[in-house]
């Protein structure tokens, strides 16, 4: 299943959003500088295991930490070398290619200021740009757009952000108008959700557990009708499991790219992908995480090809609420942690490097003797992108976009 080639009409887009704004005067961010940059933010919900995605194969403690679950250069399949120290998960050949050509960078051992381990709160901090969690109504990307507008850098009538998915990600919500596009094919209940539900039933309702188990067994045989949108009454057949996830990632990301590429389209956008909470049977080298990273890699390819000419001026930031435990847990998975990776890709990037102030993996070097210690504030990375790519003023970044972050200096040299 490839990317759907149909670009939704304006009407479909607006109907999908319920946000009925006129489609005109799209922003020309940083036009004064003669550039027309695009920024897409992808939030990986559930907390990505940074060590399972980008392995520190040169760290002497790596193998002892993860044992036979450690990604290695001579593994099956072999991890993809990035530099003398880091190697990429073998599920991501596209990212590897982009990295080699300087169009991708990886930030490792990074984290937001959040130090607890709740997904919801972690995602709130990541997306709101605030130091503490809480139900907040606006995200940093939206506030960045507002700042550009008030600074006269974009036409205030035209500033629009794009949200992909039936729920607009918090990072892009706020006063600046958002238009949303909902993929035709909604993501089915993930395998992870089914497993959790099964676990819940096994502890509370054995009869329901039996029924759910039967359904999961049937689905694993393939050919089960997938719920593209169960409420729409359109029972189209969909491929099972990971193929559906791949198709969804590619469709959602590819469509976002097509909107951002349009001459009169939005210039910033955000979307979320779920499924990263790999407590059980993480499968970094083959299995759950491998499959998800592969789907994400496919989304990268869809973005690159659908951006067309605009790829040159594009930056995609892929972030997650926090990392996972450095060690493997008792169920061959990992639990909620702290430091993790962020992927940056795009033609506008000055990449080809892993940016990390490596903390080490010895017990004393781990955060609370369990997590990869965060040594880079993710806000520094994001502020660097907003300053150098979208040309948001540093003062505004410190006060309005990431309030209370004056001491977190924007990371320079990411774009150029």
């Amino acid at each position, binding site marked *: 299943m490839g990317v759907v080639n149909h670009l939704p009409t304006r009407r479909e887009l607006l109907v999908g959003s319920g946000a009925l704004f006129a489609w005109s005067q799209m922003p020309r961010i940083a036009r004064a500088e003669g550039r027309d940059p695009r920024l897409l933010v992808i939030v990986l*919900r*559930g*907390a990505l295991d940074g060590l399972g995605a980008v392995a520190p194969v040169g760290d002497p403690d790596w193998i002892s930490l993860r044992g036979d679950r450690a990604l290695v250069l001579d593994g099956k399949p072999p991890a993809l070398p990035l530099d003398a120290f880091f190697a990429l998960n073998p599920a991501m050949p596209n990212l590897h290619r982009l990295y080699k050509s300087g169009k991708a960078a990886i930030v490792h051992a990074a984290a937001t200021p959040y130090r607890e381990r*709740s*997904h*919801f709160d972690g*995602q709130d901090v990541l997306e709101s740009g605030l130091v503490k969690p809480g*139900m907040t109504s606006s995200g940093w990307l939206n506030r960045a757009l507002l700042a550009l507008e008030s600074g006269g850098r974009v036409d205030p009538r035209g500033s629009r952000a794009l949200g992909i*998915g*039936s*729920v*607009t990600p*918090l990072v892009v*919500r706020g006063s600046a108008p958002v238009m949303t596009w909902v993929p035709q094919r*909604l*993501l*089915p*209940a*993930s395998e*992870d*959700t*089914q497993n*959790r*539900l099964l*676990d*819940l*039933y096994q*502890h*509370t*309702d054995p*009869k*329901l557990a039996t*029924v*759910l188990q*039967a*359904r*999961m067994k049937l689905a694993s045989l393939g050919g089960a009708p997938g*719920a593209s*949108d*169960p*409420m*729409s*009454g359109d*029972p189209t057949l969909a491929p099972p499991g990971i193929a559906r996830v791949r198709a969804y990632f590619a469709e959602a990301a590819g469509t976002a790219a097509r909107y951002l590429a349009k001459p009169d389209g939005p210039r910033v956008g955000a979307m*979320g992908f*779920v*499924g*990263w*909470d790999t407590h059980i049977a993480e499968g970094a080298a083959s299995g759950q995480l491998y499959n998800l990273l592969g789907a994400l890699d496919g989304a990268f390819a869809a973005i690159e090809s659908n951006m067309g000419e605009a790829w040159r001026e594009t930056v995609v930031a892929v972030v997650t609420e926090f990392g996972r435990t450095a060690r493997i847990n008792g169920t061959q998975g990992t639990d909620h942690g702290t430091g993790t990776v962020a992927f940056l890709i795009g033609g506008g990037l000055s990449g080809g490097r892993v940016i990390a102030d490596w903390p080490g993996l010895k017990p004393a070097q781990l955060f609370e003797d369990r997590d990869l210690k965060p040594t880079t504030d993710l806000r520094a990375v994001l502020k660097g992108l907003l300053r150098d790519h979208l040309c948001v003023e540093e003062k505004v970044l410190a006060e309005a976009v990431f309030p209370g972050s004056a001491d977190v200096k924007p990371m320079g040299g990411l774009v150029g």
Partner: protein
Amino acid sequence: MSSSAKAEAVLALHRFGMGPRPGSIAAVGTDPRGALIAELDRPLVLNAAAGLPSSAKAYRTVADANARRTARAKQAQQQAKKQQIAAAPVMSEDQAQTQGQAQGQGEKDAAEMAAKQAADAIPDPGRPIYLQEAKLRTEAALAADIGFAERLVWFWSNHFCVSANRIQSMSGAYEREAVRANALGRFVDLLLAVEGHPAMLVYLDNLGSMGANSTAGINRSSGLNENFAREIMELHTLGVRTGYTQDDVISFANVMTGWTLVPPGDNPEHGGEFTFNPRLHEPGGQTVLGKRYEQEDVEQGRAVLRDLAAHPATATHITTKLARHFVGDEPPPVLVEKMAKTFRDTEGDLKQVSITMVSSDDAWRGPPSKLKRPSEWGVGMVRATGITKVDPVRFTGGQELLGEALWRPSAPKGYPDDEASWIDGVGRRLDVANNFAERLAGMADPQAIIEDVFGSEIAPEVKQAVGRAESRQQALALLFMSADFQRR
């Protein structure tokens, strides 16, 4: 409120109501039985229904549209044929012979297509009426403080079901006019209202049923349809195998001949309304269940219905079904007997029967083990979020996907009320829950639902699963799918 009081309130909301919603625990208060009974004192009217057509009006609207469709189609077909004749190329005899068949087929197709297009230009008004009615009924369930009375409406509507597949335009109005208006009255009045409602007469094929010796029967030498009489005895009143015979069915069917509706084409004022047509009615007296009925007109049928309503077998049948629906697949016999006694003692006062049920300890015992039907589960899910408006296309679509399409049961027996019939569909509920959760994730906080809507009266395993979920969407889906949400 204490934790045990909250737990009792949550049970009341699940078992007898439409499920917890914001503020509903407080609405139930510390006396759940009293709160349930108090709800029955409120009028069961849908104010918002003022703008909706009566069943007869809806029926006429559809009939008018159908007549216009037929006329337009005919016109278009004739026009297409004329054009084809005029445009037909001159052919040699050989060509005409070899191509004749194909040509004729092509002309026919073109004419039929023109007819279809012309007909389709006039939309079917039945569907929008159905959706409006569905929206209204669903939103009544969402808005109710507890929803006990609405649950009773749903119960009786299913007990006396009609099918929108047969009679879409009237299905919603039927529920309002016949069921809702009598759901808290006497059973006999409910019975007379539903059996005399045009929607039921259409659904159970009584419109053309005629006595062999009636005027119409002699002239047309066609006759009786037993369906209506049989289903009234088997499903609506006495229950199957309660002693009535095939002869009783035939006699009762004769009694009910003439119960029909005013043809909509003939009468723009009253078309679609109930009427008794003496020309269809079998003359003379009839014996049903050993009793002689000598009345000559519509009163004959009413008399039989009154006696069926008062029959002891009806009391047992009805109260067993009620208890099974609310309390459990195998309701305590003591409870059923208490309810049946009230039914008999009060001449079928349905409000008193409902009060007896919720006043009895037997109705409250035991853990929540009854699997909610898809309709109850669906509306409960929406209620928990505090949403009070629905898109009827999506909502009815979801119900249909889960096997309980609104007002469309596959047989006059209505939708079943036992776990075995529904449990295999629970897996499919996950798709609906996941989808709903995705649409909702930005607006609803699963922790707040647990604390505020459920008063934290939910299994610790569920709380844990919700707390550990990787996203709000997943947390909501797990919550909606939990046994605490599925069972009552």
